[in-house]
């Protein structure tokens, strides 16, 4: 009896000792990281070299990667690039300018506008997709077709043209993420000291000068950050395509890299091949992140 009580006390003392406690605290992460992050990450690469059938896994070297060189994959790559490019075009300059407006002292109702811009990001991509599907419905009475009708253009079937497919996805993403990017730029703007603008005023600078020579340089690091996460977000695009077209669009006008991954890896259950698509996306994102780290000087040696 006495020896078990002694053993329990020892265990409790051990678990409570200042040396051990931190490890107990982080244990959930260590477990979760090993099983749900590290292992799948390694598998993501390993699987790309395999053919995976129920009950049987076979190493096939670079065969999956050779299969990647097909028109659908190239189309998916092209669509993803276009999507990323256009979302960057919209979601960097526009939020920056809006943030400047929202930061200025002569604009009223700033909080309300900030909220109005932010609320779209509260919707799920499914609900957002539904709204835009309906606004851009093919009937002549839909808002989109009524709008282009004002310019004398006939109703368009928005979901079957290559250009409008990219347009819809970019529009959807822009609507949902405008507010979040505005917030990032606002945070960056608030770090600019007022004295800079005041001394520029004394020197007689006008609004555009001040923007170009004070605001933009000061926003450099925020801009690089937002650009990087936008590029990464662009290459991850899937739901924006799925909510309009599911996993397959007519003529692959809206197939993205991840749509292709989903289509092949989950729907066709060809997980090795899907993993190969995944590795390509991973390499691209890794390179983008590397460029980001270099640009922000993570590798620069400290100057003394």
């Amino acid at each position, binding site marked *: 009896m006495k020896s078990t009580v002694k053993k329990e006390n020892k265990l409790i003392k051990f678990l409570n000792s200042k040396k051990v406690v931190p490890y107990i605290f982080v244990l*959930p992460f260590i477990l979760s990281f090993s099983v749900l992050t590290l292992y799948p990450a390694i598998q993501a690469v390993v699987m790309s070299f395999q053919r995976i059938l129920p009950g049987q896994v076979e190493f096939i070297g670079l065969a999956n990667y050779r299969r990647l060189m097909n028109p659908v994959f190239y189309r998916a790559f092209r669509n993803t690039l276009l999507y990323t490019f256009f979302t960057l075009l919209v979601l960097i300059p526009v939020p920056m300018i809006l943030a400047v407006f929202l930061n200025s002292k002569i604009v009223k109702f700033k909080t309300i506008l900030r909220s109005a811009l932010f609320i779209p990001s509260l919707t799920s991509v499914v609900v957002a997709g539904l709204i835009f*599907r309906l606004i851009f419905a093919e009937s002549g009475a839909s808002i989109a077709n009524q709008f282009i009708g004002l310019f004398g253009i006939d109703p368009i079937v928005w979901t079957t043209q290559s250009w409008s497919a990219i347009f819809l996805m970019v529009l959807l993403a822009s609507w949902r993420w405008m*507010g979040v990017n505005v917030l990032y730029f606002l945070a960056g703007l608030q770090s600019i000291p007022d004295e800079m603008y005041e001394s520029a005023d004394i020197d007689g600078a006008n609004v555009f000068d001040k923007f170009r020579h004070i605001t933009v340089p000061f926003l450099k690091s925020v801009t690089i950050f937002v650009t990087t996460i936008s590029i990464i977000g662009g290459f991850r695009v899937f739901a924006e395509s799925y909510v309009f077209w599911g996993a397959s669009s007519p003529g692959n006008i809206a197939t993205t890299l991840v749509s292709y991954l989903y289509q092949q890896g989950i729907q066709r259950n060809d997980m090795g091949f899907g993993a190969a698509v995944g590795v390509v996306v991973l390499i691209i994102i890794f390179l983008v992140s590397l460029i980001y780290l270099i640009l922000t000087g993570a590798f620069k040696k400290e100057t003394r």
Partner: protein
Amino acid sequence: MTNKNRKIVSIVLTTIIAIIGFISLFPLIALIISSFRPAVELIRNGITLNIDLENFSLTNYEYLFTEAAQYWRWYGNSLIVTILTVVLSLFFSSMVGYALGVYDFKGSGIIFLCVLLTMMIPFEIMMLPLYKLIVNLGLINTYTGIILPSIVAVNAVFFFRQFATGLPTELMDAARIDGSTEYGIFFKIMVPIMKPSFGAMTILLGLNTWNNFLWPLLVIRSNDLFTLPIGLQSLVSPYESNYNVLISGAVLSVLPIVVLFILFQKYFVSGLTAGGVKG
């Protein structure tokens, strides 16, 4: 500039901003208005500018509340998954973040690096191997399968760690002298101080889980287990004619979030910019 010029510029800019705000809210307003139009019209014409106040119709909502039992099952699933995920994730993520921020122990640097690395890996890359793992564990189509990957949320760990580096560690020594365990210090002293971070993370985790689409899409197989986004998306198809449930159901899935946002704006803003990643 002169006072008069200032006033003019102010009015012009404010008007531009108001227009932009309206454009931003327009799609949601259109959704709400359309939910009061007969579903047949939506299927045929999509969302139109036909704000015919005469034909204001509650039929979609009537149907939703009387016949659409499936929808409410989805709502319940989303509630269960969201609440479980938030509670579990807050519990575990705060523990890890707290320890990383407050204790200086061997390996804490490496562990934090692993947290950062995990934040950088996009979910889409992991989804196939994670899916295979969940299949092998027999957790496909279960609540556990949906929730498991989210239990230790690295964004929240990061956020809690940052917050924890600013905690008053002097309190810890006093508490130790009083005989408190390290765990006691965390739960009884530090957690109350960390309340703002818990608020922000509740919002971040709650919102992301409620709206989560990709992982539930992979893991859920049966209609009864669908969460709201998956369920609603399943109604969107050229062949189905459940637009009455779809449109009213969509409104009801967004409404609680918007209401919560208006009430807890501060936490939304801090939580979501901490989240960082588009998801």
